[in-house]
């Protein structure tokens, strides 16, 4: 037991919490209480540990502790090739999985100087927007469940199951799909998949208005969220908060407009922004983003060009199986790519995309071989969780649950 105590010693956290207080234990009722909202908790959206210092019901200080899901992605990435890392990117933000795939593959393509064909880019946009809808549905559903409205999680998951069966049709797996490849996507969309997407969009809008009617006439829901956890604009920028949380505090910043990737500059959509910065604004922000994603999806389905879905660059991109089995050059290149990697030039790049949770960025340092020398993942949930200690000061314990739900962290990417 001694060794376990030594490793898992938590003195430093308590010292940090109590450092500006001089506590003498004379009368127990006059002192503050340090309690643990542990890693296993129904409302902490994953394994996040919060240590709270309470004066009665009011939170005086809060220290989050991460690391309960630290799987060692960055270390593993240094030991495997670029293509082998694609399934690992799925498991970063596991509520909207295709967006992570798209972001990683775009970063590697930027480093290696490969460009995917136009149809592949449109397919990537379609699956990214579907993932955005799926992730926001999970966020809204579990947020409402935490605050007490348990019906919402059943309704949003019912819609999400339709997206899962669309992904099943396109990529073969329900949600951890690893669908994109360096240079394009793995397979083409067939007509039935497109028909299913259109059918889903038709059914989604009445479902969304039904959910709106349920939540907005619920006085308890509004009363529990309005004015709680206000994040002012300057603090949001200074703390590095990204994504819907930043836009709900008044900063109109969306990477799809600021540094357009894929073909977002050809699509017409607006960026919803709210100025209040409280939990209710963050809730509405996600609902509005789902509606914008529906608009983007309709335009993408209209504008989709015909063509190849993977780039024709045998030295860097895996070719189609029929070519590998029939031509000598392609066979040799395939062998080299699988065994030794794609060998991008020496250098480093940083590319970020707009994930449903915020800005997902990949910083890749390459030394010319097929395995990266370093891969750093800039994950939005990690950045958003920095704001927790400021937001929860002065709130009540039940508000902590609402604030964490509205920031919507996903521990798979916060802990990498």
């Amino acid at each position: 037991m001694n060794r376990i105590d030594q490793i898992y010693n938590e003195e430093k956290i308590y010292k940090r919490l109590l450092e500006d207080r001089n506590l003498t234990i004379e009368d127990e009722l006059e002192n503050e209480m340090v309690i643990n909202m542990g890693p296993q908790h129904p409302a902490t959206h994953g394994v996040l540990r919060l240590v709270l210092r309470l004066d009665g019901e009011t939170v005086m200080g809060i220290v989050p502790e991460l690391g309960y899901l630290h799987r060692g992605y960055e270390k593993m990435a240094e030991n495997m090739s670029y293509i082998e890392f694609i399934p690992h990117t799925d498991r970063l933000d596991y509520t909207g999985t295709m967006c992570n795939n798209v972001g990683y593959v775009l970063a590697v393509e930027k480093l290696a100087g490969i460009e995917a064909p136009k149809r592949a880019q449109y397919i990537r946009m379609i699956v990214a927007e579907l993932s955005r809808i799926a992730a926001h549905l999970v966020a809204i559903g579990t947020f409402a469940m935490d605050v007490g409205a348990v019906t919402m999680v059943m309704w949003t998951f019912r819609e999400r199951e339709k997206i899962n069966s669309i992904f099943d049709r396109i990529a073969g797996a329900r949600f951890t799909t690893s669908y994109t490849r360096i240079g394009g996507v793995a397979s083409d969309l067939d007509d039935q998949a497109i028909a299913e997407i259109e059918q889903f969009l038709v059914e989604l809008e009445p479902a969304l208005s039904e959910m709106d009617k349920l939540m907005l006439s619920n006085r308890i829901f509004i009363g529990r969220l309005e004015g709680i956890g206000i994040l002012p604009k300057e603090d949001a920028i200074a703390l590095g908060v990204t994504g819907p949380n930043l836009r709900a505090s008044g900063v109109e910043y969306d990477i799809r407009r600021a540094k357009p990737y894929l073909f977002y500059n050809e699509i017409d959509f607006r960026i919803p922004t709210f100025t209040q910065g409280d939990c209710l604004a963050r809730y509405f922000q996600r609902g509005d983003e789902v509606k914008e994603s529906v608009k983007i999806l309709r335009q993408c389905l209209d504008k989709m060009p015909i063509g190849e879905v993977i780039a024709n660059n045998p030295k860097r991109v895996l070719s189609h199986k029929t070519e590998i089995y029939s031509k000598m050059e392609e066979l040799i290149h395939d062998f080299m790519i699988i065994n030794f990697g794609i060998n991008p030039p020496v250098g480093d790049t940083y590319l970020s995309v707009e994930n449903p949770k915020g800005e997902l960025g990949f910083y890749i340092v390459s030394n010319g071989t097929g395995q990266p020398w370093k891969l750093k993942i800039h994950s939005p949930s990690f950045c958003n969780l920095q704001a927790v200690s400021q937001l929860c000061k002065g709130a009540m314990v039940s508000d902590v649950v609402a604030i964490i739900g509205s920031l919507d962290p996903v521990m798979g990417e916060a802990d990498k």
Partner: protein
Amino acid sequence: MGLEAKLTQDGFITTTIDAVVGWARKSSVWPMPMGISCCAIEMIAAADPKYDIARFGSEVMRFTPRQCDLMIVAGTVTFKMAQVVRRIYDQMPDPKWVIAMGACTSSGGMYRSYNVVQGIDQFLPVDVYTAGCPPRPENLLNALMTIQEKIGKTRARDFQNRSLKELELLQK
């Protein structure tokens, strides 16, 4: 057992206590969802209207260990989290069973790294392993049905005043 058939006849049923107790235990297994990462989303999907886990009796997914009999460990378990999982397992009252959901809990999955425990059976007794990354909800329901079969074969007196080691030998 044919309870429904007997209900239309005269009012006596003969059975064994083991059968009744086994039937009661297996028809209302209350799971404790130890949802850690991606498999937790599939576990919630198993509880949603399409794959309804409630029809198997597991409607009540309470997060407190004192009221549950089945622990579904869903997600990658790291060394830091293993302490927590073991502590929660110890708090569950007997009889209790464990489903290891997914590849990460069965054997470490695709993570052969410094912080991931290579299989939760290194510190927990596991009853059913489920394959998949993540396993489909139908796979989880299949695991639940296997546990129900296993419970149906136990006897009523199996779980009284036994030490943990004997319990594990019985559960094999």
